């Protein structure tokens, strides 16, 4: 049997979900954002909630997420996505409301909004992409940058006495009573992608059932900012990021 015989709609096993637009994504080759966008699209398609979804775009590389996923979007000021999501979910409580934020957005400038939205137990889902760097602005040190990690503003590695320790904000948020689900995932392998998909689906279901705030941290790569090939960046993430940001559920109520 040759390839032309196999390529037939009857034999289709995987195709791009219909929630994603045809626009080519602006992300660097191999960026984890694309995989996370894709699984969010798949979940929204499978749950059949495309017409009921309102997402909040952050400031950062993912600011253009509204061009790639065909759902309703709002663009928040830097770090203020959970505050905007609070307003939307309170006004339209039957909608699926989620924010999509990076570590510069959620763990730096938006720390106050994030902590207070989680503490109030707003019925939203937060997708937190943690790549340990400010990707869009040129690879500067972020709060989540690892000790000793080289960035454009820490060329000799993050010096802990000078620049402080890496902030594990997901651990902090898991301690708040308003939060119902906290998990940490990665999308570097097929198994990782499938687990992350289940985690994000659970977070979306919690938002629809108004159970409280759900946080899904996706430990990601920024191969352009880390100055590695995409495959090397995945290996580096497993070796260096996973010991500091271990995979698994932190809270599931």
């Amino acid at each position: 049997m040759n390839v032309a015989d196999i390529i037939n709609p009857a034999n289709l096993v995987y195709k791009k979900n219909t929630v994603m637009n045809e626009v080519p994504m602006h992300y660097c080759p191999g960026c984890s954002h694309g995989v996370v966008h894709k699984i969010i699209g798949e979940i929204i398609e499978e749950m059949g909630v495309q017409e009921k979804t309102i997402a909040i775009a952050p400031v950062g590389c993912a600011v253009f997420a509204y061009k790639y996923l065909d759902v309703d979007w709002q663009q928040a000021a830097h770090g203020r996505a959970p505050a905007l999501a609070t307003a939307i979910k309170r006004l339209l409580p039957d909608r699926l409301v989620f924010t999509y934020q990076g570590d510069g957005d959620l763990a730096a400038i938006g720390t106050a909004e994030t902590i207070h939205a989680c503490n109030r137990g707003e019925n939203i889902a937060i997708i937190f992409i943690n790549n340990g760097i400010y990707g869009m602005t040129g690879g500067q040190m972020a709060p989540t940058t690892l000790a000793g990690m080289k960035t454009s503003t820490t060329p000799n590695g993050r010096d802990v006495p000078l620049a402080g320790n890496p902030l594990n904000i997901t651990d902090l948020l898991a301690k708040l009573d308003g939060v119902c689900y906290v998990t940490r995932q990665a999308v570097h392998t097929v198994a990782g992608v499938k687990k992350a998909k289940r985690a994000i689906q659970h977070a979306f279901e919690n938002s629809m059932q108004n159970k409280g705030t759900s946080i899904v941290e996706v430990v990601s790569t920024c191969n352009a900012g880390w100055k590695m090939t995409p495959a090397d960046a995945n290996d580096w993430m497993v070796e260096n990021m996973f010991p500091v940001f271990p995979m698994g559920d932190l809270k599931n109520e």
Partner: protein
Amino acid sequence: MAKFKGAIVVDTEKCKGCDLCVVACPTTVLALSTEANSKGYNFSHMANSEDCVGCSACANVCPDACITVYRVKL
């Protein structure tokens, strides 16, 4: 054991040649092409199509959702 044979179609204009599908392929079917698309990226293609089992690993890890997978049971 049931045997499967698969094939993929790559949207070559969207592929950015990141190599992640090549690394993820369990049967080393994929490779980056020596040809480039209009953006200058060496897109992914089936270099060894005989061994494809249609497992969808490449499509799952593709950040640009540019792989479609087909599979038949032999």
